[in-house]
Each structure stands twice: as structure tokens, then as C-alpha cells.
């Protein structure tokens, strides 16, 4: 019974992922747009952040941390917009169609998240290359296994996060505004701005942010600069991701409930 059920869920997941991949590669213009834009955004972010402390442009360690900061920024950005895409799915009537097939909305959003995975992968690599070429950041990865582990954890976490986020914003009138603001706040909460540049007491505030354990871990694994013990960080990141599984499941059920009660998609 359980086996059967998980087989069904698995097949739904592959269906959604296949759909996402197909759509991603059919949107050639977006790919092109990303490839052109990314190097510019990277330069913009670098220079904007060091505007007040231009001497950092000579500090390779800081530049390398900053590069990975931008890498996670790109990743999170992509998933925020994945969450934002629910708005379209609802107006297109696709969500109704999916509900009628007894498919969980979180699974449905995986199809969009997979696009984000590709997206962050491609843009991420462009960003790394741009940063190392223009600013001389180092591309050496300090702890490769941990880096990949943290990357996978982050991809799972943000896929789930996208679905929770989607459920929260779907009824708003201008959800894109929230997405833009979040897009901007999240990097701060994740340690995208290298925490070692700040006094220890300020940097430690990050330890209260769950996003830090997920995204910041990628940066730390790549640079070898940690705020806390790497093992503890890894364990916490796994716990947070597991909790996220439950939260997203709960929220997506709630969303469907409220859609069916009020005749429109809304949680707040």
C-alpha cells in the first residue's frame, strides 16, 4: 500500500519534472536573456556592495566570498520567482486541472522548480566565471563533498520553500512586489554579504536565520570560512529541510482547502 502510493507519487513527480524541463528548453529567449544579463548583474552587485569600501576590490578572500554570495543570491532569486509563478498557474486554470487529478500542489510546483535548478545552474556558472575573470575571485572549492551536499540540500529546501511562498502570496494583488522585496531581503538573511567582513557580534545575528544554514552553508563549504562548526551546521540544515517538508505539505493542503471554500486561492 505504502509502496504503491509512493510509486504513484514518484510517477507524478517525474511527470512534473519532465514537463518543467520541456518548457524550460522551449523558452529559448529566456535562456538567452539570462546568459546576456547575468555577467552584468554580477558586476553590478559586486560594485554596489563594495561602493562604500572600495579597498575590498583588492582583497581576494572577500571577493571570493562575495562571488559565492552572489551565487546563492542567483539560486534563491530563481526559486522565489518559481514560487511567484503560481499566480499564473492559478489564472491559467492549470491549478484547477491539477487538483482534479488528485495531485499535491507542491508536486506540481516541482515542475517549475526544476526550471529554477537549471536556471541557477547556468546563471550560477556564468556568475562564477564572470567574477573570477573580472574581479579575480578564486574558483577553488574548499570542501567539495560538503559543497555538493549543501547544494543538494539547498535545492530541496528552496523547492519546498517556493511552494510555501507560492501559497502565501497567491491571493495578493501585486505578488511581484513581495517577490522583489524578498529577493532583496533573503540574501541578507543568508549570509550572501560575507559575514566575516562584519564585527563578530553583527555576523552572529545570522545564526538566527534558518536561511543562513541552507544558503550560507554553500558559501562556507566553498570558501572554508565558517561561523560555527561545519558538522553542526550540516545537521541543522538537514533538520530545517525536513521541517520544511512538513510545512510545505501542510500549507499546500491548506491552500487547496481555502481555494475550495472561498472560490479563490488565498491563505492570507
Amino acid at each position, binding site marked *: 500500500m505504502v509502496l504503491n502510493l509512493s510509486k504513484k507519487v514518484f510517477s507524478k513527480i517525474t511527470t512534473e519534472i519532465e514537463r518543467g524541463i520541456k518548457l524550460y528548453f522551449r*523558452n529559448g*529567449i*529566456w535562456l*538567452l*536573456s*539570462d546568459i*546576456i*544579463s*547575468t555577467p*552584468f*548583474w554580477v*558586476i*553590478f552587485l559586486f*560594485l*554596489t*556592495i563594495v*561602493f*562604500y*569600501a*572600495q579597498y*575590498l*576590490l583588492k582583497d581576494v578572500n572577500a571577493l571570493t566570498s562575495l562571488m559565492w554570495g552572489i551565487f546563492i543570491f542567483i539560486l534563491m532569486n530563481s526559486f522565489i520567482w518559481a514560487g511567484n509563478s503560481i499566480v499564473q498557474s492559478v489564472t491559467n486554470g492549470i491549478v484547477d486541472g491539477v487538483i482534479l487529478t488528485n495531485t499535491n500542489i507542491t508536486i506540481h510546483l516541482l515542475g517549475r522548480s526544476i526550471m529554477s535548478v537549471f536556471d541557477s545552474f547556468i546563471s550560477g556558472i556564468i556568475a562564477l566565471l564572470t567574477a573570477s575573470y*573580472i574581479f579575480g575571485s578564486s574558483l577553488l572549492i574548499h570542501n567539495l563533498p560538503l559543497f555538493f551536499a549543501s547544494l543538494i540540500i539547498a535545492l530541496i529546501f528552496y523547492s519546498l520553500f517556493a511552494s510555501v511562498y507560492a501559497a502565501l502570496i497567491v491571493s495578493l*494583488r*501585486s505578488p511581484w*512586489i513581495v517577490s*522583489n*522585496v524578498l529577493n*532583496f531581503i533573503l540574501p*541578507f538573511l543568508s549570509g550572501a*554579504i560575507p559575514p566575516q*567582513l*562584519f*564585527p563578530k557580534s*553583527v555576523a552572529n545575528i545570522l545564526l538566527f536565520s534558518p536561511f543562513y544554514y541552507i544558503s550560507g552553508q554553500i558559501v562556507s563549504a566553498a570558501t572554508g570560512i565558517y561561523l560555527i562548526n561545519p558538522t553542526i551546521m550540516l545537521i541543522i540544515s538537514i533538520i530545517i529541510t525536513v521541517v520544511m517538508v512538513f510545512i510545505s505539505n501542510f500549507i499546500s493542503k491548506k491552500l487547496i482547502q481555502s481555494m475550495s471554500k472561498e472560490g479563490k486561492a488565498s491563505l492570507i
Partner: protein
Amino acid sequence: MKKEFNQLLAILEVEIKNLLRERGTVGFAIFFPILISLSTYGVGAGILGKAPNIDLWFYQLIGFTILMIAIFMSSSSAWYVRQGLLSRRLEYLFAASINPLIIVAASSITSGLMGIGIFLVVGLIGVLVVYGISNLLNFFLATIILAVSLIPILGINLIVAATTIIGKDPEAISQPLSAIVSTTSGLAYPITILPFILQIIGEVMPYYYAAEYVRAMINGYLNLVNLESFPFLFIYLIGGYFIYRYFEYNFIRKEGNYGA
């Protein structure tokens, strides 16, 4: 000519009404430059261990505001064309004897007006905080300078509108433009710290001048010598016009490519 003017006014009225209903958008556009500039200031303070020079904050505030306006204008003309094509509203307008240029111009003027409104609010806050009331007159003159500087930018919007006709995905088209403009136009940092080639890109585009003129005017440094390159920027308006006409004729009217 009188007919065209009336048409322009009619569309403008509808567009502005439409925009004013989007309170969220306007609020966001005002709030965002303040938020970003304060954050980078905070980060700067954190890194330096002391409060940086407040002039630097003002520099970025003005830059981010103009960035916001630029992004807003280019993405709104892209969206206007795309949505117009999808909802077939443009088809109706094209069928009516309206020069399509008037339509695009009206939408650009609307977003330009909104941009000036945003600048008035954000800039006023900045000027009052940094300079007090002494620079207020300069600030209002700077607003006029901004308005004039936005005219060549209209030309770029026409090009965006034109490419949207073929590219179909408006965000995908306005995105690279925003990226290039943000990076090269001396908005968040002086272009002198950019690699040479990017400086050149910045200097041929009108956004750089808008930001520089506005800052100089507020500080009272602006004089005619600074303005020498300004007339050349109007090439954008003329170029934009012809490119738009070419696309409109070849891709919309000839191929019946009204989106859909």
C-alpha cells in the same frame, strides 16, 4: 495633427487612470530605492566600522531612483505591447485609424510621468535629509532636467516595444536592458571603477547623463559645458522611431502577427 493629439490625450488618460489604481506598484517604486540605498549604507557602515559619508548615500539614492524609473519604463513598454497583443487591445487600436506610435508613446509618457512623480517623492526626502531646504530650488530644477533627459530614453523604449513584437516575452527582453543599464550607467557607483569597455557602453546610453545631470543640478554644479553631449542623445529618439516603424510594419501588419 490635432486629431493625433486628441488620440494621445485619450490614451494617456486611460493609461494614467489604470496606473493610479496600481497603488502597490507606485508604493513599491518609491519604497525600493530608499530601502536598497539604506541597506548598502548599512552594509558599508558594518564593514567600515563607522558611518560613511552621507553624500555617498545620496549618490546611490538618486542612482537607484533613476534605475527604478529606467526599469519601470522599459518593462512597462514591453508589457504594454505584449499584453496589448495578447488581449487584442492593440489590434483594435491598430484597426482604428491611430498611428501606433501614438499608442506606444502614450504608454511611455505615462511611465515617464510616474517616474518623475517617484523622483519628486524620493529625491525630496533625500535632499531634505542631506542638504536641508537650502538645495530645494536646485532639486526642482533637477526634476525638470530629469524630465528632459527621459525624452531620449523614450527612443530606447520604442526599441524595446519593437523587439517585444517578435520576442513575445517582455520580461526576457527588458531584463538584459535593465542589467546593462544598471551596471554601466553610473547609478550605484561611478563608472570610473568599471572596466573600460563597460564605461563606453555607459557613456553612449542616455541613462548615465540623466543621473549625472540630476546630481550635478542638485549640487549646483551643472553648467552648459556639461550639457554638450546632450543633443546627441536625441539620436535615440529618432533611431527608436525608425526601428519601431520597421518592426511594426514588417512583423505586425504584414504577417498578422498579433501575438495570440
